[in-house]
């Protein structure tokens, strides 16, 4: 579903330096949850931006559902949902209206009941649904963001450090939600710093360093502490 073929990105300002992303090769099948680990600047967000079509690759291809992102940006975006690290929505609309708005942007029509159900599924308590987004905490906004991603019913989900603003309970619920989605056949690419959560939800884990994917391993062979050891060795 998600495929990177020799995907390389070099920013014009740093032409002499190393590329931000260097010949990434990666395939994520439907139902798979791939967690990208790595330090800041390792190339995780660049990878996601290349799949989203916000960046043009210097060479190589980002492929979604068999379509090259650079050639079919609209078609590939239709198949994607995206959750950024910090979800920023419209502060003057309430949670329900924001969800409705972003769902209609993607061409979906939901009844108010369906919208409420999505918000609840994303973990947002019912009494917050009709409050203005300006009054929300970061975690609550993140949940609306999750609901927006759910509403799109996308085949692939890109997550950029999605749990960074969530409390442990919410993060746990979020993990369950991801496993649900994985089981129902969504291909998920998640960039994260959270080794333990990666081990918990990921089917495979990749470790990035200086733009390269240096290690890929399935999670079922490893314990979290083994994984941490590998991570610390690699970076």
């Amino acid at each position, binding site marked *: 579903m998600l495929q990177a073929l020799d995907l390389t990105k070099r920013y014009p300002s740093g032409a002499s330096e190393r590329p931000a992303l260097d010949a990434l090769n990666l395939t994520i099948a439907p139902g798979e949850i791939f967690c990208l680990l790595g330090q800041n600047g390792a190339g995780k967000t660049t990878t996601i931006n290349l799949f989203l079509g*916000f960046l043009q690759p210097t060479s190589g291809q980002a492929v979604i559902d068999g379509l090259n992102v650079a050639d079919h940006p609209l078609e590939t975006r239709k198949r994607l949902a995206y959750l*950024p690290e*910090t*979800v920023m*929505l419209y502060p*003057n609309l309430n949670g329900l209206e924001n969800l409705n708005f*972003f769902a*209609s942007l*993607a061409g979906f029509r939901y009844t108010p009941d369906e919208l409420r159900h999505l918000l609840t599924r994303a973990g947002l308590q019912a009494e917050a649904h009709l409050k203005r987004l300006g009054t929300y905490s970061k975690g609550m906004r993140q949940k609306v963001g999750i609901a927006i991603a759910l509403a799109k019913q996308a085949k692939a989900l890109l997550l950029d450090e999605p749990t960074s603003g969530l409390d442990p309970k919410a993060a746990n619920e979020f993990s369950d939600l991801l496993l649900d989605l994985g089981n129902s056949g969504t291909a998920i690419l998640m960039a994260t710093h959270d080794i333990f959560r990666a081990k918990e939800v990921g089917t495979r884990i990749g470790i990035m360093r200086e733009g390269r994917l240096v290690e890929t391993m399935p999670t079922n062979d490893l314990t979290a502490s083994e994984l941490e050891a590998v991570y610390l060795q690699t970076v």
Partner: protein
Amino acid sequence: MLTLLFRSFIRSTGVKIGLGFLLTAGLVSLLVGRQFLDRQHRHHREVVAAQQADLRQLAEFNSKEMGLMLYYAPFALVNETLPLAGLSIGQRDVNPSIQRLTIRGLEGQKYDADLNNPSNLLLGNIDFSFVLIYLFPLLIIAFTYSVVSEERENGTWRVVAVQSRNLMGFIAQLFAVRLAVVLGLLVLLLGGGVAVLGLPLDAPFWLFAATAVLYVLGWFGICFWVASLHRPSSTNAVLLITTWLGLLVVVPAAVNQYLLTRYPLPEALATTVKQRRGYHEKWDMPQAPTVAKFYAHYPQFKHYPLPNTSFNWLWYYAMQQMGDDESARESGELRQKLYQREAASRQFGLWLPSVHAQLRLNDLARSGLGNQVRFLDETTRFHERLRLYFYPKIFEEYPVKAENWDQHFVETFADRSPIRVADFLLPPLLFALLLAGLGWLNFRRHLYHL
């Protein structure tokens, strides 16, 4: 979706304050217009009443000599004030809308102006055209300087870009919502104008409204283009405020200065001097040459002989006539230059939406320089009609009592100079379309750049 965009926009406190402020300013402008129209109508009524009374009274006091009677007798010509002038007062506050003339030398009377409080003139009127031309753009800038750029800055854009199936359409909707709100306010104020000023819903009114709408569209074009440059909101704000200052303050001042230098009016003083000398020096000259020149101007009066007296009315009015005749060249040049200034400002108006809107709204309201110059032309014709009517009566010493003074009504000048719709609508339409097109191209280029 438009509904949600509209809600998101209108719920912001800044938007409510801005709309409230502009609505208040708009309503004040309508009251200013109402006061202006009331004053004009009052003056008109007063002049009509005064003319009948004055003529009767003067006829009683000066019943012996027609020449003396007409030395004093004032006849008024009124420049019709349309209700639309309440929306766009133009130069009507500086230039008098009523001329009261005797049949003596015209040039000495033609440029008489009302007494005005100079500080009022300096501040100008807060009429509707001021609110439209100066204040509406500020609101439009406030509403649009951060469209798209703010969403990019706070990160909403990433989610929007991924979700949206038609990102260009989404940008168009962001602007459409703001445009609808601003146009709604404009329509509300124009509706208020109809109610407060009693504007008839005729062709000039609709053209006035269309010109106003296109002016607003022009500013939306500017804002759309600036938003498309892919710069931070703060840069957009600076760019737009600079444009506002440029289009509304700096460039018009520069254009005005250019017109003053390019078409200077030394004739104004020269006309006065020549007219006065033309008349006054004749007192010290023999009567016959003056009257001969008068005969040359009006051969039809040749059969009235010059009386052999030290003072007579034929000679007196011939002297008055010479004041006008000898300053005719300067007067003509003055008029010519005023027309040239008017024509030149129109040329500038083709390129500057602010100048265009001001000139064209004044055109429709019949309150601009063009109207004033045509009123002066009509004043000249009016004065000439009076002279041709009264000269024979003076020269043949027609009895004052025999003249039916009540038939000399106040006359009204209705400016009917032609209005070409294309001149009003095409320049701002092309301006708005051009900027919208350029903005569209820019947006397409940067659409998915973060």
